[in-house]
């Protein structure tokens, strides 16, 4: 007898929002993230991107890793682990953090939410249970709980996001400042909102128990309808974060603990994250190595480039002359930016060549023929896109 093959354990798992998101994923464009299905794009990546820049968009970030770290030693333990000073964080605030190996190589980046004096939530893109356990050695009054599967989360971003949340009934959401947390109750629905995101735009992240995920989606969608709400996927996210100047693991850096080859990972200084490393606080992981590097200066530097022409430079080599005799770096991420109307990229470049001429050797294709061009690159210091409206409190309606 013929029996259908059993692929059930082969498939990535649906997130708590899957029942809603799948209706929008018209061509079944899924990838996977930490064992869960994640939408690469729903309908059209550029449309989704514009929803965030022009109206509002929802990104299902449930596959993010979420850890509750609590106890009297929680602050000290996290402060020992990450490179920023956690003791300066007030309750109800969120902070972007990095953590490194003893050699000062970047393991991952993430955010810490200070939920109470002695309770934190750490979120990050990749599973970190083992490293957290290791970092907890020597701290006794400490409980670490992996909440990744219990907590669902939505990133709700865009200029109309605050107006939509107000319309949904989140009284006071307009007073929430960037990197601030607030809890809300709508009837039986309880959740936490933080004014955070990965898009550089006005936006919030909503954290809710997996059971209440669909109720949250429905309430948000109903309110968002008149504000242009639309789900967005990974491709759009990648465009948005690059414009905002945010790095991404797997693009700008290889996670240190997963790196096979010598120094194929990076340090915070190489990534231009100097201000995220605080030498004034007591000892933290990687301090000695990072201090030495900060004196010496990083060997390579992540650089923001505005490249002539309109062919995205992803994957290109960077040279120090138009003749392309010596490569001095490579592009880590590159896109055509529709709002800036520029060909933008992140590139890892040998620090000593930063001040000279930079040229990208870009390969592209037209109707199956391959072409290449040498395009001049200009270094940008500030993010490619940093709209004023993203910082206002209270935010404008659009």
């Amino acid at each position, binding site marked *: 007898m013929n029996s259908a093959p059993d692929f059930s354990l082969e498939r990535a798992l649906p997130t708590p929002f899957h029942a809603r998101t799948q209706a929008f994923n018209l061509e079944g464009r899924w990838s996977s993230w930490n064992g869960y299905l994640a939408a690469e794009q729903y309908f059209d990546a550029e449309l989704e991107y*514009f929803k965030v820049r022009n*109206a509002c968009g929802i990104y299902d970030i449930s596959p993010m890793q979420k850890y509750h770290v609590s106890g009297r030693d929680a602050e000290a333990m996290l402060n020992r682990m990450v490179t920023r000073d956690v003791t300066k964080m007030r309750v109800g605030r969120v902070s972007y953090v990095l953590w490194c190996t003893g050699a000062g190589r970047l393991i991952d980046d993430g955010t810490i939410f200070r939920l109470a004096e002695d309770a934190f939530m750490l979120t990050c893109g990749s599973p970190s249970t083992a490293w957290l356990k290791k970092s907890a050695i020597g701290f006794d009054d400490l409980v670490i709980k992996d909440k990744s599967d219990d907590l669902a989360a939505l990133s709700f971003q865009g200029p109309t996001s605050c107006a939509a949340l107000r319309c949904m009934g989140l009284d006071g959401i307009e007073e929430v400042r960037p990197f601030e947390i607030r809890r809300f109750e709508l009837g039986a629905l309880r959740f936490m909102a933080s004014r955070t995101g990965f898009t550089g735009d006005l936006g919030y992240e909503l954290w809710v128990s997996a059971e209440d995920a669909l109720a949250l989606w429905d309430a948000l969608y109903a309110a968002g309808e008149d504000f242009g709400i639309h789900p967005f996927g990974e491709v759009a996210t990648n465009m948005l974060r690059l414009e905002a100047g945010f790095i991404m693991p797997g693009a700008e850096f290889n996670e240190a603990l997963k790196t096979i080859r010598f120094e194929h990972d990076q340090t915070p200084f190489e990534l231009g994250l100097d201000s995220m490393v605080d030498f004034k606080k007591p000892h933290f992981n990687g301090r000695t190595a990072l201090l030495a590097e900060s004196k010496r200066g990083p060997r390579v530097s992540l650089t923001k480039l505005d490249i002539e022409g*309109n062919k995205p430079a992803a994957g290109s080599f960077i040279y120090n002359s138009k003749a392309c005799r010596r490569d001095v770096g490579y592009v880590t991420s590159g896109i055509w930016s529709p709002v800036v109307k520029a060909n933008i990229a992140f590139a890892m470049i040998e620090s000593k060549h930063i001040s000279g001429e930079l040229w990208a050797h870009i390969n592209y294709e037209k109707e199956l023929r391959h072409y290449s061009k040498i395009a001049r690159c200009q270094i940008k210091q500030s993010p490619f896109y940093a709209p004023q409206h993203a910082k206002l409190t209270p935010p404008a309606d659009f």
Partner: protein
Amino acid sequence: MKRYDAIVIGAGHNGLTNAAYLAKAGLDVLVVEKNDYIGGAAVSRELYDGWTYSNCSYVCSMMRQVLHRDLDLGRHGLMLIPYLGTINFGDAGNALISYHSKSAAYNELKRHSRHDADAKLRIRADLTRYALIIRKTLLRTPPDPAWMRIRDIRELLFLAKQFWSLGEKEIYEYVRFFTLSAADFLDEYFETDLIKASMASSGIIGTALGVHSPGSSYILLHHVMGDVDGNVGAWGLARGGMGAISKALESALRSFGGAVRSEAEVVRVLVRHGRACGVVLANGEEIHSKIVVSNLDAKRTFTKIMDKRDLPPGIFEKASKYKFHGSSGKVNIALDALPKFTGVPDNPYVNRGSQAYPGSMHTLERAFDCWKRGRFSDVPFIESVIPSAWDPTVAPPGKHWMSNFIQYCPAELSDGPWTPEKRDAFGQAVVERIEAYSPGFKDLILHMEVRTPHEIEQEVGLTEGNIFQGELTIDQLLFNRPFPGYAQYRMPVKRMYMCGSSTHPGGGVSSACGANAAREILLDLRKPSTVPEDDCDDE
């Protein structure tokens, strides 16, 4: 008394672009505008509380990306956003939907005709090939075949090279294409009337040609040669309305030190010893400058603000005959909710983008017949767009603004001048046509702005309300625009220039005319050009 380096007459988007590039080159520039608002036909105004109408132009595709980038218009507040979905309504109450996804688009055409579904792919390739060549000419000054200076020869060679790259057979096709009617051109591809009609309508927008008139195939191309972020043929919206383009240009101009004065109508250009040297405003005030640039259409420039005696013989007559026909109207409607359309799925990617009412090839031609007889079309072609479904800034949440572009509406009626009653009757014909496909539409209307060519001429100063500042027929294109001998943005009077859509590459919100004119002016002043080259080579 202060003397400016340059005065630009008219704060249309081309005037502002021109001024921005002159100011960027270090010139002390003043733009003088007759209205109390800027933008000309790229304008958005709140005429009804909470609604921002783009009173004339409403969609954007021709804006040269390289200028947008070079002037950093994004930082000056401009964002161009895409919208999706076009429905073409047929006379039989049927609809042809342009889906965004390739597979749905193909399946929809196949539903009408398998043959035409294939042919659509072929016509797309052909039109894109034609468009890619035209696109390369947009940010270049046309050569003057009569002069044959080194630059003219270089530009002619450039054009020749582009054409040669097509291959011999295609060159013949291309040349033929320019003289065809939209109907003849489409007949070579399609068998289904509604598919033809839905494409032919691009061949009549803004022009006094019918779908069977020779030359209408070029107009069709003119409407598909733009792009949104490299997607050639796509149209987008300006966030905040088309006026946002003008505002961003003004902001760029001011960042370079330029100035704009509104409510300053120019009545005459001052000419001394054969050189332009300033302008006289309606209030009698004189403003002096080293050069003068006109953003007005060629007819107005030569016949309204120049003293005939300052012009060489014959030019005045030539300018008076420059071909202009008002043929379009515009109806902006504030709606209480999104309209619903019969026979159209409740799919947000199709039911809130644009709706077109070509009806059939016959209906389109009949609409033109009305125009020829000096009446507005009783069954007009309408292109509606609902920008508020994509742009949260132009109407309150849940409410909508519908922009309706109408073909045909004459500048002069056979039964005497336009009156408010006739204007309202025109608006009513439009509403009735929509109501037939969207029952209940009328009940959603909160406010309406109806504009015939008469209003467009009065407000924007486009002669006859012609949207392109002069017909886009082959006798008025490229080195013939506005007329032979004056296609390089220079006027017969020294130190005076033209920068409006009457010049190459013609109408539409492209900023190209203004930028090209700036390049020529800076060349005459022996200053390095601040105008970038187009990056079409990447296409």
